[in-house]
């Protein structure tokens, strides 16, 4: 078994994952970065996208995160996610419905708060759709 690091994925409401992994790729706001054991100390913001957990050189699991923060040190990679869902749990039809509804709300509302909220949600929904649209090459 290859060397591992502790991967932790936490959302405000609960601890989602805490397990040893061989490698994990995190969608940083300035580009994806892969984390292997012994990584240099790093704190980064995370953009909406996919976290990929690797095992034996292959992607074992893909998780969608809607942004957040990541802290990396030699033994640990902690991702504080705003929202996190395993990729297989995303449903294209549902998401497309949500996107349409949000767009409709954007076009009809006069309220700035509602508009900003809808716009932020739309970014996340679109990121989810993109994640679904580009399945991993494995």
């Amino acid at each position, binding site marked *: 078994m290859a060397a591992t690091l502790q991967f*932790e994925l*936490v*959302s*405000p*409401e*609960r*601890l989602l994952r805490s397990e040893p992994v061989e490698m994990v790729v995190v969608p*940083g*706001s*300035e580009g994806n*970065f892969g984390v292997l054991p012994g990584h*240099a*100390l*790093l*704190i*980064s*913001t995370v953009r909406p996208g996919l976290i990929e957990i690797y095992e034996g050189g292959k992607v074992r699991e893909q998780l969608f995160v809607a942004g957040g*923060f990541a*802290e990396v040190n030699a033994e640990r990679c*902690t991702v*504080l996610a*705003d929202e996190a869902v395993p990729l297989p749990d995303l449903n294209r039809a549902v998401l497309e419905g949500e996107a349409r509804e949000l767009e409709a709300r954007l076009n009809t509302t006069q309220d700035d708060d509602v508009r900003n909220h809808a716009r932020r949600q739309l970014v996340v929904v679109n990121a989810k759709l993109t994640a679904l649209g580009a399945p991993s090459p494995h």
Partner: protein
Amino acid sequence: MATLKELRLRIRSIRSTQKITSAQKMVAASRLRRAQEQAEAARPYAQRMERMLGSLAASLQGRVNATPLLAGTGSDQTQLLLVMTSDRGLAGGFNAAIIRETRRLIRELEAAGKAVKLVTLGRKGRDALRRDQRQRLIESRVEIGRPRLRFEEVETIAAALLALYADHQFDICTVIFNHFHSAISQVVTRQQLIPFSPPEAAHDHDEAADRGIYEFEPEEAEILNELLPRNLAIQIYTALLDSIASEWGARMTAMDNATRNAGDMINDLTITYNRSRQAAITKELIEIISGAEAL
């Protein structure tokens, strides 16, 4: 002396009250367990957020360009109190303790020449403070976290506070809430939310030595600008969860006491009832016997 019929009715009414309080106690116990689980589940995020902020603050130390959320506005003239109470009563001293502390704090701050503003979460706090602090109350929210507190809900509260802060409506924000100490004891706690004070002391000894220098992507100030508002939401979230768990703990205790009191009253009344019934029987017997003797 109450008649036998009155006593009987009294006992029956107390017995039905007791049924209600004991059912409420059971409900409170199960809600308390759920609230505790939720508070427990939220802890990992808060802890890691704190650790990350500790690293960031350590790396930013002494730099002047810190954001107002960290450095403050340079004044402490206007104080905002975020008061957390419950929506429903029948929870013993849960709300009264918070409201008393709030009033005390207002007096203290105003005696020191500060201006005080209030934001209340929960109906009981709003109703009580609206009576005598109306001019200080700037916002209130009720029915939070029903049936279950969601983080999204808290984010809107945090966003509202941040908007007020950006608008220079206050300099310092402090939250007052019931900290869950155990199911039977809650501690009224004050915690400063804005400006945020990093928990340096707690971190200095354990990790500082092997911490080394972090790399930041993007740079520290930018991460901080995203991290601090989120941290505010997290702090409000954990305080609210704490307060909700306390509320159910307090309610459970209150209902347990009420059930026990009702039991005591029923026992007392039953004794009185039996005595007066016996007395009535004895009286009748004496009357019959003395009637027979007189013949």
